[in-house]
Protein backbone atom coordinates (compact mmCIF):
# COMPACT_ATOMS: atom_id res chain seq x y z
CA UNK A 1 0.00 0.00 0.00
CA UNK A 2 2.62 2.53 0.99
CA UNK A 3 4.64 1.61 -2.03
CA UNK A 4 1.89 2.46 -4.44
CA UNK A 5 1.14 5.72 -2.72
CA UNK A 6 4.72 6.84 -2.90
CA UNK A 7 4.77 6.09 -6.59
CA UNK A 8 1.87 8.39 -7.13
CA UNK A 9 3.47 11.09 -5.07
CA UNK A 10 6.48 11.04 -7.29
CA UNK A 11 4.65 11.04 -10.56
CA UNK A 12 2.08 13.74 -10.19
CA UNK A 13 1.96 17.45 -10.31
CA UNK A 14 3.31 19.28 -7.28
CA UNK A 15 0.03 20.41 -5.71
CA UNK A 16 -1.43 16.93 -5.54
CA UNK A 17 1.81 15.49 -4.25
CA UNK A 18 1.74 17.63 -1.12
CA UNK A 19 -1.95 16.96 -0.48
CA UNK A 20 -1.56 13.20 -0.56
CA UNK A 21 1.34 13.08 1.77
CA UNK A 22 -0.41 15.34 4.19
CA UNK A 23 -3.38 13.08 4.25
CA UNK A 24 -1.46 9.95 5.03
CA UNK A 25 0.74 11.63 7.57
CA UNK A 26 -2.30 13.22 9.17
CA UNK A 27 -4.03 9.92 9.56
CA UNK A 28 -0.99 8.28 11.05
CA UNK A 29 -0.54 11.14 13.47
CA UNK A 30 -4.15 10.87 14.57
CA UNK A 31 -3.74 7.16 15.16
CA UNK A 32 -0.54 7.82 17.05
CA UNK A 33 -2.31 10.35 19.26
CA UNK A 34 -5.11 7.92 19.91
CA UNK A 35 -2.60 5.32 20.95
CA UNK A 36 -1.13 7.79 23.41
CA UNK A 37 -4.63 8.52 24.67
CA UNK A 38 -5.14 4.84 25.38
CA UNK A 39 -1.89 4.57 27.25
CA UNK A 40 -2.65 7.74 29.16
CA UNK A 41 -6.15 6.63 30.08
CA UNK A 42 -4.80 3.30 31.24
CA UNK A 43 -2.23 4.82 33.54
CA UNK A 44 -4.59 7.46 34.79
CA UNK A 45 -7.21 4.87 35.63
CA UNK A 46 -4.72 2.80 37.54
CA UNK A 47 -3.52 5.82 39.44
CA UNK A 48 -6.81 7.04 40.87
CA UNK A 49 -9.57 5.47 42.90
CA UNK A 50 -11.22 5.30 46.26
CA UNK A 51 -8.02 4.03 47.81
CA UNK A 52 -5.36 6.67 47.47
CA UNK A 53 -2.08 5.22 46.29
CA UNK A 54 0.88 7.45 45.47
CA UNK A 55 2.41 6.95 42.07
CA UNK A 56 5.72 5.51 43.14
CA UNK A 57 3.90 3.03 45.27
CA UNK A 58 1.92 1.93 42.24
CA UNK A 59 5.10 1.12 40.38
CA UNK A 60 6.41 -0.74 43.41
CA UNK A 61 3.42 -2.99 43.84
CA UNK A 62 3.27 -3.61 40.12
CA UNK A 63 6.52 -5.46 40.29
CA UNK A 64 6.71 -6.72 43.85
CA UNK A 65 4.05 -8.79 45.51
CA UNK A 66 4.22 -7.68 49.12
CA UNK A 67 0.69 -8.80 49.90
CA UNK A 68 -0.30 -5.27 50.82
CA UNK A 69 -3.73 -3.79 50.27
CA UNK A 70 -2.24 -1.58 47.57
CA UNK A 71 -0.90 -4.59 45.73
CA UNK A 72 -4.28 -6.31 45.88
CA UNK A 73 -6.05 -3.16 44.78
CA UNK A 74 -3.84 -2.57 41.78
CA UNK A 75 -3.46 -6.17 40.67
CA UNK A 76 -6.92 -7.53 41.42
CA UNK A 77 -9.14 -4.52 41.05
CA UNK A 78 -7.81 -1.68 38.95
CA UNK A 79 -5.50 -3.40 36.48
CA UNK A 80 -8.00 -5.98 35.23
CA UNK A 81 -10.79 -3.42 35.29
CA UNK A 82 -8.88 -1.04 33.04
CA UNK A 83 -7.90 -3.81 30.65
CA UNK A 84 -11.48 -4.99 30.54
CA UNK A 85 -12.72 -1.47 29.86
CA UNK A 86 -10.25 -1.13 27.02
CA UNK A 87 -11.22 -4.43 25.43
CA UNK A 88 -14.94 -3.74 25.74
CA UNK A 89 -14.52 -0.29 24.23
CA UNK A 90 -12.48 -1.68 21.39
CA UNK A 91 -14.98 -4.44 20.66
CA UNK A 92 -17.99 -2.19 20.62
CA UNK A 93 -16.31 0.51 18.55
CA UNK A 94 -15.17 -1.92 15.87
CA UNK A 95 -18.59 -3.58 15.86
CA UNK A 96 -20.21 -0.21 15.27
CA UNK A 97 -17.79 0.65 12.47
CA UNK A 98 -18.49 -2.64 10.71
CA UNK A 99 -22.25 -2.41 11.11
CA UNK A 100 -22.40 1.12 9.79
CA UNK A 101 -20.62 -0.11 6.68
CA UNK A 102 -22.52 -3.32 6.01
CA UNK A 103 -25.89 -1.75 6.73
CA UNK A 104 -25.14 1.47 4.85
CA UNK A 105 -26.51 3.35 7.78
CA UNK A 106 -24.73 5.86 9.99
CA UNK A 107 -27.07 5.09 12.89
CA UNK A 108 -26.25 1.41 13.02
CA UNK A 109 -24.66 0.41 16.30
CA UNK A 110 -24.94 -2.86 18.19
CA UNK A 111 -27.35 -1.53 20.81
CA UNK A 112 -29.63 0.54 18.63
CA UNK A 113 -30.25 -2.24 16.17
CA UNK A 114 -30.78 -4.87 18.76
CA UNK A 115 -27.68 -6.99 18.32
CA UNK A 116 -26.64 -6.34 21.90
CA UNK A 117 -30.11 -7.10 23.21
CA UNK A 118 -30.14 -10.33 21.24
CA UNK A 119 -26.84 -11.24 22.83
CA UNK A 120 -28.18 -10.36 26.25
CA UNK A 121 -31.36 -12.35 25.88
CA UNK A 122 -29.66 -15.54 24.75
CA UNK A 123 -26.98 -15.13 27.38
CA UNK A 124 -29.56 -14.83 30.13
CA UNK A 125 -31.47 -17.73 28.67
CA UNK A 126 -28.49 -20.03 28.86
CA UNK A 127 -27.89 -18.94 32.44
CA UNK A 128 -31.44 -19.94 33.28
CA UNK A 129 -31.26 -23.44 31.86
CA UNK A 130 -27.60 -24.24 32.44
CA UNK A 131 -26.39 -22.03 35.24
CA UNK A 132 -23.18 -23.91 35.89
CA UNK A 133 -21.68 -23.20 32.52
CA UNK A 134 -20.81 -19.54 32.56
CA UNK A 135 -18.12 -20.11 29.97
CA UNK A 136 -20.85 -20.89 27.45
CA UNK A 137 -22.42 -17.48 27.80
CA UNK A 138 -20.36 -15.67 25.12
CA UNK A 139 -21.08 -18.41 22.60
CA UNK A 140 -24.82 -18.30 23.16
CA UNK A 141 -24.69 -14.54 23.27
CA UNK A 142 -23.13 -14.70 19.82
CA UNK A 143 -25.94 -16.93 18.57
CA UNK A 144 -28.40 -14.41 19.94
CA UNK A 145 -26.60 -11.53 18.31
CA UNK A 146 -26.50 -13.28 14.93
CA UNK A 147 -30.18 -14.18 15.23
CA UNK A 148 -31.03 -10.56 15.79
CA UNK A 149 -28.92 -9.57 12.78
CA UNK A 150 -30.57 -12.14 10.55
CA UNK A 151 -34.05 -11.08 11.62
CA UNK A 152 -33.13 -7.50 10.82
CA UNK A 153 -31.87 -8.41 7.36
CA UNK A 154 -34.99 -10.42 6.62
CA UNK A 155 -37.28 -7.63 7.76
CA UNK A 156 -35.37 -4.91 5.98
CA UNK A 157 -34.56 -6.60 2.69
CA UNK A 158 -36.39 -5.18 -0.27
CA UNK A 159 -34.49 -5.82 -3.43
CA UNK A 160 -31.36 -4.80 -1.60
CA UNK A 161 -30.26 -3.22 1.63
CA UNK A 162 -32.44 -0.24 2.38
CA UNK A 163 -30.76 1.89 5.06
CA UNK A 164 -33.95 3.38 6.51
CA UNK A 165 -35.66 0.04 6.75
CA UNK A 166 -32.63 -1.41 8.51
CA UNK A 167 -32.86 1.12 11.30
CA UNK A 168 -36.59 0.68 11.72
CA UNK A 169 -36.23 -3.09 11.73
CA UNK A 170 -33.35 -2.78 14.17
CA UNK A 171 -35.25 -0.60 16.61
CA UNK A 172 -38.14 -3.05 16.51
CA UNK A 173 -35.87 -6.03 17.09
CA UNK A 174 -34.11 -4.22 19.89
CA UNK A 175 -37.39 -3.44 21.61
CA UNK A 176 -38.49 -7.04 21.22
CA UNK A 177 -35.35 -8.52 22.68
CA UNK A 178 -35.18 -5.96 25.48
CA UNK A 179 -38.71 -6.85 26.44
CA UNK A 180 -37.63 -10.47 26.40
CA UNK A 181 -34.78 -9.72 28.76
CA UNK A 182 -37.02 -7.81 31.15
CA UNK A 183 -39.53 -10.62 31.02
CA UNK A 184 -36.87 -13.16 31.85
CA UNK A 185 -35.64 -11.10 34.76
CA UNK A 186 -39.15 -10.80 36.15
CA UNK A 187 -40.33 -14.35 35.71
CA UNK A 188 -37.10 -16.13 36.36
CA UNK A 189 -35.53 -13.74 38.81
CA UNK A 190 -34.92 -16.61 41.15
CA UNK A 191 -32.91 -18.48 38.59
CA UNK A 192 -31.10 -15.70 36.87
CA UNK A 193 -28.51 -15.51 39.58
CA UNK A 194 -25.65 -15.48 37.17
CA UNK A 195 -27.13 -12.39 35.57
CA UNK A 196 -24.75 -10.48 37.74
CA UNK A 197 -23.14 -9.93 34.40
CA UNK A 198 -26.17 -8.37 32.87
CA UNK A 199 -26.13 -5.24 34.86
CA UNK A 200 -26.76 -2.41 32.56
CA UNK A 201 -23.26 -1.71 31.44
CA UNK A 202 -21.07 -1.84 34.49
CA UNK A 203 -17.46 -2.75 35.14
CA UNK A 204 -18.03 -2.89 38.87
CA UNK A 205 -16.15 -5.63 40.69
CA UNK A 206 -14.93 -7.21 37.47
CA UNK A 207 -11.63 -8.97 37.52
CA UNK A 208 -9.35 -11.29 35.58
CA UNK A 209 -12.06 -13.86 34.93
CA UNK A 210 -13.96 -11.44 32.75
CA UNK A 211 -10.77 -10.26 31.07
CA UNK A 212 -9.85 -13.77 29.98
CA UNK A 213 -13.39 -14.45 28.88
CA UNK A 214 -13.44 -11.58 26.41
CA UNK A 215 -9.77 -11.60 25.41
CA UNK A 216 -9.79 -14.34 22.74
CA UNK A 217 -12.84 -12.82 21.07
CA UNK A 218 -11.26 -9.39 21.09
CA UNK A 219 -8.05 -10.61 19.56
CA UNK A 220 -9.73 -12.70 16.89
CA UNK A 221 -12.24 -9.95 16.19
CA UNK A 222 -9.57 -7.30 15.82
CA UNK A 223 -7.39 -9.39 13.53
CA UNK A 224 -10.26 -10.47 11.29
CA UNK A 225 -11.56 -6.92 11.10
CA UNK A 226 -8.19 -5.58 10.05
CA UNK A 227 -7.97 -8.27 7.39
CA UNK A 228 -11.43 -7.34 6.14
CA UNK A 229 -10.61 -3.68 5.60
CA UNK A 230 -10.29 -3.86 1.84
CA UNK A 231 -13.50 -5.85 1.52
CA UNK A 232 -15.31 -3.29 3.60
CA UNK A 233 -13.90 -0.45 1.53
CA UNK A 234 -15.26 -2.01 -1.61
CA UNK A 235 -18.56 -2.97 -0.03
CA UNK A 236 -19.31 0.62 0.90
CA UNK A 237 -18.97 1.68 -2.71
CA UNK A 238 -22.41 0.16 -3.15
CA UNK A 239 -23.66 -3.39 -3.63
CA UNK A 240 -23.92 -3.20 -7.40
CA UNK A 241 -20.52 -1.61 -7.86
CA UNK A 242 -18.92 -4.02 -5.43
CA UNK A 243 -20.31 -7.01 -7.22
CA UNK A 244 -19.14 -5.58 -10.49
CA UNK A 245 -15.64 -5.29 -9.08
CA UNK A 246 -15.61 -8.94 -8.14
CA UNK A 247 -16.55 -8.85 -4.45
CA UNK A 248 -18.80 -11.59 -3.11
CA UNK A 249 -21.22 -9.15 -1.61
CA UNK A 250 -23.49 -11.49 0.35
CA UNK A 251 -20.60 -13.42 1.82
CA UNK A 252 -18.76 -10.27 2.81
CA UNK A 253 -21.86 -8.81 4.38
CA UNK A 254 -22.61 -11.96 6.36
CA UNK A 255 -19.03 -12.38 7.46
CA UNK A 256 -18.63 -8.80 8.64
CA UNK A 257 -22.00 -8.87 10.36
CA UNK A 258 -21.00 -12.05 12.14
CA UNK A 259 -17.75 -10.39 13.12
CA UNK A 260 -19.61 -7.43 14.57
CA UNK A 261 -21.99 -9.79 16.36
CA UNK A 262 -19.06 -11.71 17.84
CA UNK A 263 -17.41 -8.54 19.11
CA UNK A 264 -20.62 -7.11 20.54
CA UNK A 265 -21.77 -10.37 22.08
CA UNK A 266 -18.49 -10.98 23.88
CA UNK A 267 -18.60 -7.46 25.29
CA UNK A 268 -22.20 -7.90 26.46
CA UNK A 269 -21.29 -11.18 28.09
CA UNK A 270 -18.88 -9.55 30.48
CA UNK A 271 -20.23 -6.10 31.21
CA UNK A 272 -23.84 -6.14 30.13
CA UNK A 273 -25.53 -3.80 27.74
CA UNK A 274 -23.42 -0.76 27.00
CA UNK A 275 -24.63 1.60 24.34
CA UNK A 276 -23.24 4.72 22.77
CA UNK A 277 -19.69 3.56 22.08
CA UNK A 278 -20.58 1.77 18.86
CA UNK A 279 -22.37 4.81 17.53
CA UNK A 280 -20.19 7.69 18.62
CA UNK A 281 -16.71 6.34 18.11
CA UNK A 282 -16.84 5.33 14.44
CA UNK A 283 -18.58 8.57 13.59
CA UNK A 284 -16.00 10.64 15.34
CA UNK A 285 -13.25 8.75 13.57
CA UNK A 286 -15.00 9.21 10.28
CA UNK A 287 -15.21 12.92 10.81
CA UNK A 288 -11.54 13.03 11.78
CA UNK A 289 -9.83 10.82 9.23
CA UNK A 290 -12.46 9.58 6.81
CA UNK A 291 -14.01 6.34 5.74
CA UNK A 292 -11.09 4.14 4.75
CA UNK A 293 -11.51 1.01 6.84
CA UNK A 294 -7.78 0.31 6.86
CA UNK A 295 -7.47 3.31 9.16
CA UNK A 296 -10.94 3.39 10.61
CA UNK A 297 -10.75 -0.01 12.27
CA UNK A 298 -7.57 0.59 14.26
CA UNK A 299 -8.51 4.19 15.03
CA UNK A 300 -11.97 3.21 16.26
CA UNK A 301 -10.48 0.44 18.36
CA UNK A 302 -8.15 2.91 20.06
CA UNK A 303 -10.72 5.64 20.59
CA UNK A 304 -13.27 3.14 21.89
CA UNK A 305 -10.79 1.73 24.38
CA UNK A 306 -9.74 5.16 25.61
CA UNK A 307 -13.32 6.37 25.90
CA UNK A 308 -14.55 3.47 27.98
CA UNK A 309 -11.49 3.47 30.22
CA UNK A 310 -11.81 7.19 30.91
CA UNK A 311 -15.56 7.02 31.42
CA UNK A 312 -15.28 4.13 33.82
CA UNK A 313 -12.59 5.93 35.77
CA UNK A 314 -14.81 8.99 36.14
CA UNK A 315 -17.76 6.79 36.99
CA UNK A 316 -16.04 5.37 40.02
CA UNK A 317 -14.16 8.44 41.20
CA UNK A 318 -16.40 11.42 40.72
CA UNK A 319 -18.80 10.51 43.56
CA UNK A 320 -16.46 8.14 45.28
CA UNK A 321 -17.15 5.77 46.92
CA UNK A 322 -20.52 5.59 45.22
CA UNK A 323 -20.30 4.41 41.64
CA UNK A 324 -22.49 5.74 38.89
CA UNK A 325 -23.28 3.75 35.75
CA UNK A 326 -20.65 4.01 33.02
CA UNK A 327 -23.31 4.59 30.37
CA UNK A 328 -24.25 7.94 31.83
CA UNK A 329 -20.68 9.15 32.02
CA UNK A 330 -20.08 8.12 28.43
CA UNK A 331 -23.11 10.03 27.30
CA UNK A 332 -21.97 13.12 29.18
CA UNK A 333 -18.46 12.93 27.78
CA UNK A 334 -19.30 11.74 24.31
CA UNK A 335 -22.28 13.78 23.27
CA UNK A 336 -20.73 17.25 23.40
CA UNK A 337 -17.64 15.99 21.61
CA UNK A 338 -19.76 14.52 18.89
CA UNK A 339 -21.92 17.62 18.53
CA UNK A 340 -18.75 19.68 18.23
CA UNK A 341 -17.49 17.45 15.44
CA UNK A 342 -20.80 17.75 13.63
CA UNK A 343 -20.52 21.50 13.55
CA UNK A 344 -17.11 21.46 11.93
Amino acid at each position, binding site marked *: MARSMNKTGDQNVEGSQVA*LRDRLAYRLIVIGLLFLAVVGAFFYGNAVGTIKIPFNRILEVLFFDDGSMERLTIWNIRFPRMILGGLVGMNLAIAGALLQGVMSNPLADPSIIGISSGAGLFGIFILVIMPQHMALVPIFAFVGAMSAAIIIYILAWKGGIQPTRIILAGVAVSALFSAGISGMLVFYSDRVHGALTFMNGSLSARSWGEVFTILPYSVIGLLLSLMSSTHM*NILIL*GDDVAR*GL*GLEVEKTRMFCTALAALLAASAVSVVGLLGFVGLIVPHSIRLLIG*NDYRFMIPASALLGAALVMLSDTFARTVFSPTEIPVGIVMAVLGAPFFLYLLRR
Partner: protein
Amino acid sequence: MDQPILTVHHLSVAFRDRRILHDINLAFEKGKVYAIIGPNGCGKTSLMRTLSRNLKPSAGEVKLRGKNIFRLNTKYVARHIAILSQFNYTMSDVNVRTLVQYGRFAHRKWWSGNSAEDEEKVDWALTTTGMQDLANRKLANLSGGERQRAWIAMSIAQDPEILLLDEPTTFLDISHQLEIMELVTKLNREQGITIVMVLHDINHAARYSDELIVLHDQSVFRRGNPWEILESNVLEDVFRVQADISIDKELGTPIFYAKKVVKS
Protein backbone atom coordinates in the same frame (compact mmCIF):
# COMPACT_ATOMS: atom_id res chain seq x y z
CA MET B 1 -14.57 -11.33 -34.60
CA ASP B 2 -17.98 -12.77 -35.27
CA GLN B 3 -18.46 -15.22 -32.46
CA PRO B 4 -20.59 -13.79 -29.68
CA ILE B 5 -18.83 -13.61 -26.35
CA LEU B 6 -21.86 -12.74 -24.27
CA THR B 7 -25.13 -14.50 -24.93
CA VAL B 8 -28.56 -14.32 -23.36
CA HIS B 9 -30.89 -17.31 -23.60
CA HIS B 10 -34.61 -17.12 -22.84
CA LEU B 11 -33.93 -14.85 -19.96
CA SER B 12 -36.86 -14.02 -17.72
CA VAL B 13 -36.85 -12.16 -14.46
CA ALA B 14 -39.89 -11.91 -12.21
CA PHE B 15 -40.33 -10.53 -8.73
CA ARG B 16 -43.34 -11.96 -6.91
CA ASP B 17 -46.05 -11.63 -9.55
CA ARG B 18 -44.48 -8.79 -11.44
CA ARG B 19 -42.83 -9.45 -14.77
CA ILE B 20 -39.55 -7.60 -15.12
CA LEU B 21 -37.95 -9.24 -18.15
CA HIS B 22 -39.57 -11.76 -20.44
CA ASP B 23 -37.88 -14.29 -22.69
CA ILE B 24 -34.91 -12.17 -23.73
CA ASN B 25 -32.59 -13.61 -26.35
CA LEU B 26 -29.48 -11.68 -27.34
CA ALA B 27 -25.99 -12.24 -28.64
CA PHE B 28 -23.20 -9.70 -28.25
CA GLU B 29 -20.22 -9.97 -30.58
CA LYS B 30 -16.73 -9.04 -29.57
CA GLY B 31 -15.60 -5.55 -30.45
CA LYS B 32 -18.98 -4.06 -31.26
CA VAL B 33 -20.95 -1.24 -29.70
CA TYR B 34 -24.54 -1.99 -28.70
CA ALA B 35 -27.12 0.53 -27.55
CA ILE B 36 -30.23 -0.52 -25.68
CA ILE B 37 -33.12 1.89 -25.92
CA GLY B 38 -36.74 1.84 -24.90
CA PRO B 39 -39.37 3.75 -22.94
CA ASN B 40 -39.28 3.94 -19.16
CA GLY B 41 -40.25 0.73 -17.48
CA CYS B 42 -39.34 -1.47 -20.43
CA GLY B 43 -36.69 -3.30 -18.45
CA LYS B 44 -33.48 -1.68 -19.67
CA THR B 45 -31.88 -1.22 -16.28
CA SER B 46 -33.08 -4.61 -15.13
CA LEU B 47 -31.41 -6.17 -18.15
CA MET B 48 -28.14 -4.42 -17.34
CA ARG B 49 -28.37 -5.48 -13.72
CA THR B 50 -28.94 -9.07 -14.77
CA LEU B 51 -25.99 -8.98 -17.16
CA SER B 52 -23.84 -7.68 -14.32
CA ARG B 53 -25.19 -10.35 -11.96
CA ASN B 54 -26.93 -7.91 -9.66
CA LEU B 55 -30.31 -9.44 -10.45
CA LYS B 56 -31.05 -13.14 -10.55
CA PRO B 57 -32.93 -14.72 -13.46
CA SER B 58 -36.06 -16.70 -12.71
CA ALA B 59 -35.60 -18.52 -16.00
CA GLY B 60 -32.99 -18.67 -18.73
CA GLU B 61 -29.27 -18.01 -18.70
CA VAL B 62 -26.60 -15.45 -19.39
CA LYS B 63 -23.41 -16.98 -20.72
CA LEU B 64 -19.91 -15.65 -21.02
CA ARG B 65 -18.20 -17.67 -23.72
CA GLY B 66 -20.67 -20.42 -23.23
CA LYS B 67 -20.43 -20.55 -19.43
CA ASN B 68 -23.26 -19.44 -17.16
CA ILE B 69 -22.06 -16.28 -15.44
CA PHE B 70 -24.06 -17.04 -12.32
CA ARG B 71 -22.01 -20.15 -11.81
CA LEU B 72 -18.63 -18.68 -12.53
CA ASN B 73 -16.25 -17.35 -9.92
CA THR B 74 -17.09 -13.74 -9.15
CA LYS B 75 -13.60 -12.40 -9.65
CA TYR B 76 -13.25 -14.26 -12.91
CA VAL B 77 -16.35 -12.60 -14.28
CA ALA B 78 -15.16 -9.24 -12.97
CA ARG B 79 -11.99 -9.60 -14.97
CA HIS B 80 -14.05 -9.87 -18.12
CA ILE B 81 -17.13 -7.75 -17.52
CA ALA B 82 -17.26 -4.32 -15.91
CA ILE B 83 -20.35 -2.28 -15.18
CA LEU B 84 -21.06 1.39 -14.73
CA SER B 85 -24.40 1.79 -12.95
CA GLN B 86 -26.79 4.63 -13.39
CA PHE B 87 -26.71 5.80 -9.80
CA ASN B 88 -23.52 5.64 -7.87
CA TYR B 89 -24.34 6.79 -4.40
CA THR B 90 -21.67 5.74 -1.97
CA MET B 91 -20.81 6.53 1.62
CA SER B 92 -17.17 6.19 0.76
CA ASP B 93 -15.06 9.31 0.71
CA VAL B 94 -12.26 8.04 -1.48
CA ASN B 95 -10.23 10.12 -3.84
CA VAL B 96 -10.13 9.33 -7.54
CA ARG B 97 -6.92 7.40 -7.57
CA THR B 98 -7.98 5.10 -4.73
CA LEU B 99 -11.28 4.47 -6.48
CA VAL B 100 -9.55 3.48 -9.67
CA GLN B 101 -7.21 1.25 -7.70
CA TYR B 102 -10.24 -0.70 -6.48
CA GLY B 103 -10.74 -1.62 -10.11
CA ARG B 104 -7.76 -3.94 -9.77
CA PHE B 105 -9.43 -5.91 -6.98
CA ALA B 106 -10.42 -8.73 -9.31
CA HIS B 107 -6.85 -9.10 -10.50
CA ARG B 108 -5.07 -9.59 -7.23
CA LYS B 109 -5.29 -11.52 -3.99
CA TRP B 110 -7.17 -9.64 -1.30
CA TRP B 111 -4.25 -9.58 1.04
CA SER B 112 -1.73 -8.12 -1.33
CA GLY B 113 -1.42 -4.54 -2.36
CA ASN B 114 -1.22 -3.38 -5.92
CA SER B 115 1.71 -4.62 -8.00
CA ALA B 116 3.67 -2.52 -10.44
CA GLU B 117 1.51 -3.85 -13.24
CA ASP B 118 -1.62 -2.92 -11.32
CA GLU B 119 -0.33 0.61 -10.87
CA GLU B 120 0.44 0.88 -14.56
CA LYS B 121 -3.12 -0.05 -15.37
CA VAL B 122 -4.38 2.53 -12.90
CA ASP B 123 -2.24 5.22 -14.50
CA TRP B 124 -3.42 4.18 -17.93
CA ALA B 125 -7.07 4.28 -16.85
CA LEU B 126 -6.60 7.76 -15.40
CA THR B 127 -4.89 9.05 -18.51
CA THR B 128 -7.36 7.50 -20.90
CA THR B 129 -10.25 9.16 -19.11
CA GLY B 130 -8.34 12.40 -18.74
CA MET B 131 -8.44 12.23 -14.94
CA GLN B 132 -4.74 12.18 -14.18
CA ASP B 133 -4.72 15.76 -12.88
CA LEU B 134 -7.70 15.12 -10.67
CA ALA B 135 -6.34 11.90 -9.21
CA ASN B 136 -6.11 13.27 -5.68
CA ARG B 137 -9.49 14.94 -5.57
CA LYS B 138 -12.27 13.47 -3.55
CA LEU B 139 -15.18 12.06 -5.54
CA ALA B 140 -17.55 14.46 -3.88
CA ASN B 141 -15.52 17.43 -5.08
CA LEU B 142 -15.85 16.60 -8.75
CA SER B 143 -18.35 17.86 -11.30
CA GLY B 144 -20.92 15.47 -12.75
CA GLY B 145 -18.91 14.75 -15.85
CA GLU B 146 -15.67 14.34 -13.95
CA ARG B 147 -17.28 11.96 -11.52
CA GLN B 148 -18.67 9.87 -14.32
CA ARG B 149 -15.24 9.69 -15.88
CA ALA B 150 -13.77 8.62 -12.56
CA TRP B 151 -16.22 5.71 -12.34
CA ILE B 152 -15.44 4.78 -15.92
CA ALA B 153 -11.74 4.89 -15.10
CA MET B 154 -12.39 2.43 -12.30
CA SER B 155 -14.31 0.18 -14.68
CA ILE B 156 -11.62 0.13 -17.31
CA ALA B 157 -8.91 -0.45 -14.75
CA GLN B 158 -10.62 -3.80 -14.39
CA ASP B 159 -9.29 -4.45 -17.88
CA PRO B 160 -12.60 -5.86 -19.08
CA GLU B 161 -13.51 -7.30 -22.43
CA ILE B 162 -17.05 -6.08 -22.05
CA LEU B 163 -18.10 -2.77 -20.57
CA LEU B 164 -21.71 -2.36 -19.52
CA LEU B 165 -22.96 1.20 -19.09
CA ASP B 166 -26.39 2.04 -17.70
CA GLU B 167 -27.43 5.51 -18.89
CA PRO B 168 -23.92 6.97 -18.55
CA THR B 169 -24.94 10.40 -19.81
CA THR B 170 -28.43 10.98 -18.52
CA PHE B 171 -27.70 13.63 -15.90
CA LEU B 172 -24.80 15.35 -17.54
CA ASP B 173 -24.38 18.63 -19.37
CA ILE B 174 -24.32 18.35 -23.14
CA SER B 175 -20.57 18.84 -23.38
CA HIS B 176 -19.97 16.19 -20.76
CA GLN B 177 -22.35 13.89 -22.55
CA LEU B 178 -20.31 14.16 -25.72
CA GLU B 179 -17.10 13.69 -23.77
CA ILE B 180 -18.37 10.44 -22.34
CA MET B 181 -19.63 9.17 -25.68
CA GLU B 182 -16.33 10.03 -27.33
CA LEU B 183 -14.50 8.25 -24.57
CA VAL B 184 -16.63 5.19 -24.94
CA THR B 185 -16.01 5.16 -28.69
CA LYS B 186 -12.28 5.50 -28.11
CA LEU B 187 -12.30 2.57 -25.72
CA ASN B 188 -14.06 0.48 -28.30
CA ARG B 189 -11.81 1.47 -31.19
CA GLU B 190 -8.46 1.50 -29.43
CA GLN B 191 -8.88 -1.27 -26.85
CA GLY B 192 -11.42 -3.42 -28.66
CA ILE B 193 -13.72 -3.38 -25.65
CA THR B 194 -17.24 -4.56 -26.39
CA ILE B 195 -19.65 -1.86 -25.30
CA VAL B 196 -23.23 -2.47 -24.20
CA MET B 197 -24.92 0.71 -23.11
CA VAL B 198 -28.38 1.83 -22.17
CA LEU B 199 -29.04 5.24 -23.62
CA HIS B 200 -31.83 7.67 -23.15
CA ASP B 201 -30.96 9.79 -26.12
CA ILE B 202 -31.95 8.09 -29.36
CA ASN B 203 -29.56 10.18 -31.38
CA HIS B 204 -26.57 9.25 -29.27
CA ALA B 205 -27.62 5.66 -29.76
CA ALA B 206 -27.92 6.10 -33.48
CA ARG B 207 -24.64 7.94 -33.82
CA TYR B 208 -22.36 5.94 -31.60
CA SER B 209 -23.46 2.33 -31.86
CA ASP B 210 -23.19 -0.53 -34.30
CA GLU B 211 -26.45 -2.12 -33.30
CA LEU B 212 -29.61 -0.90 -31.59
CA ILE B 213 -31.65 -3.15 -29.34
CA VAL B 214 -35.15 -1.84 -28.73
CA LEU B 215 -36.86 -3.05 -25.56
CA HIS B 216 -40.59 -2.77 -25.07
CA ASP B 217 -42.88 -4.33 -22.49
CA GLN B 218 -40.03 -6.22 -20.87
CA SER B 219 -39.06 -7.99 -24.12
CA VAL B 220 -36.82 -7.39 -27.08
CA PHE B 221 -38.96 -5.63 -29.65
CA ARG B 222 -36.46 -5.35 -32.47
CA ARG B 223 -32.74 -5.42 -33.18
CA GLY B 224 -30.81 -3.94 -36.05
CA ASN B 225 -28.36 -1.30 -37.20
CA PRO B 226 -29.34 2.32 -36.60
CA TRP B 227 -30.72 2.94 -40.08
CA GLU B 228 -32.86 -0.17 -40.03
CA ILE B 229 -34.39 0.75 -36.74
CA LEU B 230 -34.90 4.46 -37.31
CA GLU B 231 -36.34 4.14 -40.79
CA SER B 232 -38.89 1.54 -39.77
CA ASN B 233 -41.96 2.25 -37.67
CA VAL B 234 -40.34 0.63 -34.67
CA LEU B 235 -39.69 3.77 -32.71
CA GLU B 236 -43.11 5.16 -33.58
CA ASP B 237 -44.75 2.06 -32.18
CA VAL B 238 -42.54 1.93 -29.13
CA PHE B 239 -42.15 5.62 -28.25
CA ARG B 240 -45.48 6.73 -29.73
CA VAL B 241 -44.10 9.68 -31.65
CA GLN B 242 -43.99 10.54 -35.32
CA ALA B 243 -40.49 11.57 -36.35
CA ASP B 244 -38.51 12.97 -39.22
CA ILE B 245 -35.36 11.03 -40.04
CA SER B 246 -32.48 12.93 -41.54
CA ILE B 247 -28.81 12.23 -42.00
CA ASP B 248 -25.66 13.53 -40.40
CA LYS B 249 -23.80 14.43 -43.56
CA GLU B 250 -20.37 14.11 -42.01
CA LEU B 251 -20.78 10.80 -40.23
CA GLY B 252 -23.46 9.18 -42.32
CA THR B 253 -25.49 8.29 -39.28
CA PRO B 254 -29.23 8.90 -38.99
CA ILE B 255 -30.74 11.74 -36.95
CA PHE B 256 -34.08 11.29 -35.19
CA TYR B 257 -36.28 14.34 -34.77
CA ALA B 258 -39.59 13.75 -32.94
CA LYS B 259 -42.45 15.79 -34.40
CA LYS B 260 -45.78 14.69 -33.11
CA VAL B 261 -47.33 12.50 -30.46
CA VAL B 262 -49.17 9.51 -31.87
CA LYS B 263 -52.38 8.73 -30.06
CA SER B 264 -52.63 5.03 -29.41
